[in-house]
């Protein structure tokens, strides 16, 4: 990947991170799109799995800094999601809109499952409701946002796939 494309991807990544910390507090919905997941997944498929894991860890630490009660949980989940996304993209996926949407959906859902399991702050029923109801909703919203971002920044994101 050329340095211009690296710079563009980094810019889009920063933009999505900023959106995450700006739009979500404004919306304050029960289920919300996760801009961090979109940012990580978009970046992860363009770098090596190890770098994606590092990127996920750093971004997760950023999010954890603002939620000390679950410190480390987001970092762990995003590291795993980033690594897996990068590895899976290299193995399976091609550039397909529907597959990308599915990719975002599964990524967000997996993140939520990991997060809920590690945070250890809910009862079993609450965990079940979150995983079975709210997380899919949030994942669907995240997939939608991911697709919109892909559509809007298609030219910017045309990059050499790893």
């Amino acid at each position, binding site marked *: 990947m050329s340095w211009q494309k690296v710079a563009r991807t980094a810019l889009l990544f920063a933009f999505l*991170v*900023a959106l995450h*910390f*700006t739009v979500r*507090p404004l919306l304050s919905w029960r289920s919300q799109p996760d801009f961090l997941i979109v940012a990580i997944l978009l970046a992860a498929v363009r770098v090596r799995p*190890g770098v994606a894991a*590092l990127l996920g860890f750093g971004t997760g630490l950023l999010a954890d800094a*603002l939620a*000390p009660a679950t410190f*480390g949980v987001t970092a762990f989940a995003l590291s795993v999601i980033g690594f897996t996304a990068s590895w899976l993209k290299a193995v399976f996926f091609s550039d397909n809109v529907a597959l990308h949407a599915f990719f975002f959906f599964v990524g967000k859902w997996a993140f939520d499952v990991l997060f809920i399991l590690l945070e250890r702050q809910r009862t079993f029923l609450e965990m079940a409701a979150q995983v079975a109801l709210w997380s899919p909703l949030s994942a669907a919203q995240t997939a939608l946002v991911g697709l919109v971002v892909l559509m809007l920044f298609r030219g910017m994101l045309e990059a050499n796939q790893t």
Partner: protein
Amino acid sequence: MARPARASSRVDAALLVACTLLALLAIVLPTPTRDAIAGVLQRTFAAPVFALQLRSERARTALAEREQVAARVDSLALRVVQLGQLEAENLRLRQLLALGHRVQRGFVPAEGLHGQGIGESHALLLTVGAKAGVVPRSAVVAPQGVVGLVTSVGNTTSQAILWSHPDFRVSAMSADGATFGIVTPHLSGNDEACRGAGEAACAGPERMLLEMRGVAFRDPLKPGTLIASSGLGGVFPRGILIGTVIGELKTTEQWSRTYLLRPSVRPQDVSNVMVLSPVLVTDNLAGMWDTAGAGAAVVARVVAAGDSLARRATADSAARQRVIDSTAAARLAADSVAAAAGVAPRDTTRVAPGVRRDTARRP
């Protein structure tokens, strides 16, 4: 080619393991340590996103509170309006108190209720009746002057007609007592005098004005002259304010004049009144009515009287406290003297010895 690929896979795996281990370590850290690290991160590389999130939270809170603030402002505005009404009522009651203070005897305070039915627009229901000493043909007054006349009396309520009633009449005179006439409601509008006096003087329905008839031709009245009851006729005592001359009315009468008056009391403003007893009919009540600001001094005196009562109550309370304190100090001194002399102080709280007779038990 296979060896470098395997090596980079190992590096990737190592990075993943390192990241996950660090994250797990962060999860199991003691809470104070985690909070400290989070605080450091918030102040350093997470500071920009922290500021973003803070600003968004504030914006959302402001949006959420906007309706509440609007509702609060609305309710405050409503309360301010109600306070205005309360102040007006308070002023009316104080003026009535001041009038009572001036008249001193021979009156019954009452509440005047306006009827809403047809034909009740010129009548007033009073909340006092025969039990309070009200008799028919008693004068009804407000602090500003004449309101009307009691026509019928029940046990606890009375019916009065307002000065705007077609049957209302009162014998009147100019404030200096030089000119006399009969005051009646002004039942016909579009008079020359009204037009001559200007639009401001006759603004609104002319029906709500009075006219003074039968004034001797030789006694012209200037606009602005105060008109009061003359005391003739045995109903209204002398000196009750009725209104102010606006101008002369052109009539067919050749040997007398008719004047248009602006009444001193507006019927729609009447809510608390006084019913004057017939014993006052022979009295002169001149100078007791609220012309422009005349009653303010008396109202101030009433308020000051209330304040002085409060001051006296405070002084009494302080004096009582001083007595209690001095008694306690004397008792303490006596106890200490007794203790110094080796005598145990008397236990004043102990119940006196002996069994009380059980008065409740049956023999």
